[in-house]
């Protein structure tokens, strides 16, 4: 039982913290927000050089074989900098799906390219009617003579505009009818029949809606052997929930630190705001929410490779709890900044919007408390 960081983990944290502090500031964010790509390919290259894109990829595919705790360390720092590079889409989700479902040849072909920064991925799974139910997919993949034909409409595809390959989920059918199996397909950017409408994403970065109409794919576009991919999708999304939790912890910490500082400096009635007990108690509660978020995010990371029920409960519990805590810290940060808090002139608004996006991604608190309850199997004292 040991929750302290190893020397390697400490070094990773120092290096990513330093990079973020030196690279990401308000000017950088404004430039990214106005940029049609929404992030910097030059920085992406630096991520590759620093080894961060290789972190969770197995060593035999050019990766570093690290785990969810390392991903969490990186994501927390990314949260502090409001990083808009497509790390979650490519490294956590994309590489995760390929590692979990891909054939040996597909892993050989793609994982090293993710690690060296030459391939970016996106995951097109959500559909309007499904809300956050991962099993609800209407997009269809028809087995045809020379491969596959895909049709469907996907929403909230994170970073789809920047991906070399989009991983699309669809229900498999053939002339004999549907098999009901949920499969994943690799759709190269620019494939005829796909329409991609991308938009600036709340809180930074971009996302898109993706329509697939009569899209023809080669036989080897199918990821893996065509077994139902829902268990792998759930596992990878649970990893994403843990990573997002760590990112939220970084965002919350920045908002809290800024707010604490502001209440010490801002004078009203001849004294700083922080001299008022009502403000001090609010700040104490915010500090507690930040610390609780840190604990439960760490739990989701440490349990990310546990058996499915324990893993799912840890991931959903963290998403639900951090969602609630993040909302509190974000809203109180704006409140305590007074009228300035609702302007675009302070950074606080950018962080606020990123936390709102966090709460929405893959389902909010209510959805994840429900999933936690539905998974059953209450835990006993740990370890």
């Amino acid at each position: 039982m040991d929750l302290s960081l190893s020397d390697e983990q400490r070094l990773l944290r120092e290096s990513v913290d330093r990079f973020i502090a030196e690279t990401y500031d308000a000017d950088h964010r404004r430039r990214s927000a106005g940029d049609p790509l929404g992030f910097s390919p030059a920085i992406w290259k630096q991520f590759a050089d620093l080894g961060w894109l290789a972190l969770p990829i197995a060593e035999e595919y050019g990766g570093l074989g690290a785990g969810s705790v390392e991903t969490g360390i990186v994501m927390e720092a990314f949260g502090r900098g409001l990083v808009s590079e497509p790390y979650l889409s490519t490294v956590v989700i994309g590489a995760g799906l390929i590692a979990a479902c891909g054939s040996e040849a597909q892993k050989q072909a793609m994982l090293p390219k993710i690690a060296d920064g030459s391939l970016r991925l996106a995951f097109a799974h959500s559909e309007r009617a499904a809300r956050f139910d991962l099993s609800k997919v209407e997009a269809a993949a028809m087995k045809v003579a020379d491969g596959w034909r895909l049709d469907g409409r996907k929403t909230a595809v994170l970073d789809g505009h920047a991906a070399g390959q989009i991983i699309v989920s669809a229900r498999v059918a053939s002339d004999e009818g549907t098999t009901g199996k949920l499969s994943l397909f690799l759709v190269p950017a620019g494939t005829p029949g796909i329409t991609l409408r991308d938009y600036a994403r709340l809180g930074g970065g971009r996302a898109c809606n993706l329509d697939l109409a009569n899209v023809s794919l080669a036989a080897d576009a199918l990821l893996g052997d065509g077994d139902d991919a829902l268990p792998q999708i759930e596992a990878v999304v649970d990893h994403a929930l843990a990573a997002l939790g760590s990112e939220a912890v970084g965002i919350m910490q920045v908002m809290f630190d800024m707010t604490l500082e502001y209440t010490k400096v801002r004078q009203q009635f001849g004294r700083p705001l922080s001299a008022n007990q009502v403000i001090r108690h609010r700040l104490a509660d915010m500090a507690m929410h930040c610390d609780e978020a840190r604990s439960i995010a760490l739990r989701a990371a440490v349990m990310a490779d546990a058996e499915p029920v324990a893993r799912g409960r840890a991931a959903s519990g963290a998403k639900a709890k951090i969602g609630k805590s993040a909302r509190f810290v974000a809203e109180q940060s704006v409140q305590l900044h007074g009228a300035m808090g609702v302007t675009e002139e302070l950074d606080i608004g950018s962080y606020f919007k990123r936390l709102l996006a966090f709460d929405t991604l893959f389902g909010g608190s209510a959805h994840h408390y429900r999933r936690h309850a539905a998974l059953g199997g209450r835990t006993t004292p740990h370890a």
Partner: protein
Amino acid sequence: MDLTFSPQERAFEQEVRDFIAQNLTSEMKRATALTPSVFSDPDIGMAWQRALHEKGWGAPGWPVDQGGPDWTAAQRWIFEAECARAGTPNVNVMGVKMVGPVIIGFGSPEQKNFYLPRILSGEDYWCQGYSEPGSGSDLASLKTRAVRDGDDYVINGTKIWTTHAHHANRMFALVRTNDTERKQDGISFILIDMKSPGITTRPILTIGGDHEVNQVFFDDVRVPVANRVGEEGKGWTYGKYLLEFERGSGIASAKLRDALKTVSDLAESDATGRAIDDPDIGLRMSEIEVDIDTLEMTELRVLSALQTGQNPGAVSSLLKLRVSEIRQAVTRLGVEVIGNDGLYVEPLRPLYRLNETPGIPEEILPVVPEYLNGRAYTIFGGSSEIQRDIVAKMVLGL
């Protein structure tokens, strides 16, 4: 980084389980489940303390040369978790966890030799004399006065909210020995024999129907000067040390998890018409469980830091607030789960001595008293408002 225990720690876990299996009687277990107040009555609690003492586990936090078992932080965690899981009695902590460490830290050799073995064995039963009617949150304003007269102090005044004063044969108290400008500087820490002439104890019934706390009156009570711990006027420092002693080694999540399991078992039973099938109750059960998971991780973070010789830092200051709030959330959910049985009042105490069959299932009896008594969690030991003041000052530097 991992959450699993080593083979040695697993072996220790088994040793604890075996010990509990051999020593926790069904009577103790039932009495503990049916005790809606914080501590078990002495007949139950001290029987358990004696068993622990015989095993050499009577005082987990004490140094080895004073009778401590020399456990690592992980072993303490395992011990607490296993006790919570098994439902062992809640031994009154005033001796082992409160006055014991102060005597070890600041007591004279005579005091150590006399008192410590009697705490370990359960021969002495302690209560704490801190709060007064006029000094609650503002503890340093306390007025109970100890005036020097030869080799004695003569004590006059009153203490209140004194848990188990009606069972205790000894009290450790903060008393005023001097009127100094800074009121904290005139306070001394003193050990009082509860059989001394001039002490009277008045019971105070709390809203759950339990007699756990008291008011204690001192009328010219003579206490030898030799019963003062440490220096005169340093009592405030020792009193604070006492509160900090358990800092970082507090393990509450296992007990809270056990309490939630009790509520969850009730919710899944026919006795409550399967309250769990109400989706709102299931959802709130999950909400509380995640809060406990969070608390457990925070405790484990502190434990890890202690184990690797680091200072856990400010994080442990936040624990008391959350522990008390989660405890209240569990008891509130309990009341909702039992539905109409929440209307039933059983005046007899202790509940485990009930001779007649109660009008509701026995396991439901303590639910409402636990909720009612539980309101005190955010009040005693420094109210939540005081805790937030402390966090703002000590953690946030405001």
